[in-house]
């Protein structure tokens, strides 16, 4: 646990940035990779290591950061939805209806898709919780954040190792 404390800190930051309504507008594909890079830097500062980071270790830090970001992101998103009984599914539902109407598909498919999301919307409006929504947030957050964290770890290690190389030369 202590070994990956820097991942916890960076992952928490990324998780918050992905969820909090105002901060979310700054969300971009760089958040989790940058968080993974930050976790490597923080760990290096904390341990005062001067040696090169192995790619395997950087990957672990990246994955852990992604997992923490997913954990906090999922928790905050589900918690905020539960408290407010409102989320992006509800906010964008009228837009989704318009969009689905515009697609060149059969009315049956349109109806099925809209029914599916109408059910999720109704569940959230009445109880603040939907199994399907929770499952989709959980799967999305864990897969995507882990991959992006791993990418950040792999690229971040090269930047840090290059800096160490320059210092020793």
């Amino acid at each position: 646990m202590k070994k990956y404390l820097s991942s916890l800190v960076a992952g928490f930051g990324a998780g918050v940035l992905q969820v909090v309504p105002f901060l979310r507008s700054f969300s971009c594909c760089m958040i989790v990779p940058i968080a993974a890079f930050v976790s490597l830097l923080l760990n290096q500062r904390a341990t005062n290591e001067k040696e090169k980071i192995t790619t395997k270790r950087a990957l672990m830090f990246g994955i852990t950061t992604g997992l923490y970001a997913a954990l906090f992101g999922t928790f905050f998103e589900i918690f905020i939805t539960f408290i407010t009984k409102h989320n992006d599914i509800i906010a964008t539902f009228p837009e989704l209806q318009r969009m689905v109407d515009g697609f060149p598909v059969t009315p049956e498919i349109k109806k099925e898709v809209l029914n599916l999301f109408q059910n999720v919307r109704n569940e959230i409006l009445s109880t603040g919780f939907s199994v399907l929504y929770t499952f989709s947030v959980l799967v999305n957050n864990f897969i995507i954040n882990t991959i992006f964290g791993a990418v950040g770890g792999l690229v971040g290690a090269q930047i840090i190792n290059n800096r160490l190389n320059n210092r020793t030369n």
Partner: protein
Amino acid sequence: MSVPFRILLFAVLALWCAGIFIEWFVGIHENFLFALPFLQKSYSLVCHQEHSKLIFFEHGVTLTCARCTGIYSGMLFISFLALFGIVKKRPEIKFLFIAAAPMAADVILYSLNVYRYSKTAAFITGLLLGSAGFLYLYAGLKNLIAELKK
């Protein structure tokens, strides 16, 4: 990196990029419509999806903004070149920062209202960073495979 790994990397990136254009695929097969809201949620994790910054095409819009679409397209393009062994060695790290500079400049300049947001500029600057970024990801994966083989 061995050919199967290169193919796998390209396939993953191609799948990711195809997801961005899911609305186009709905025109090909209507069942893709079921995946659309789910994918919108997935891509919302990695992009703000501001409507005015999305790329419009026949039957829909991209699920990521012009800049993010550029980044992923750049990665896909270089991963395609890597399939043929064109990508040999990783350039100096400063090249990554040089490639990121136009994107940073574009974000700062349009945020300061020096000029209006341009999807073309966002896409091209993203493409540049994505292309350069892939080289470091590729090198990282190569290092990882080498470490794991030891």
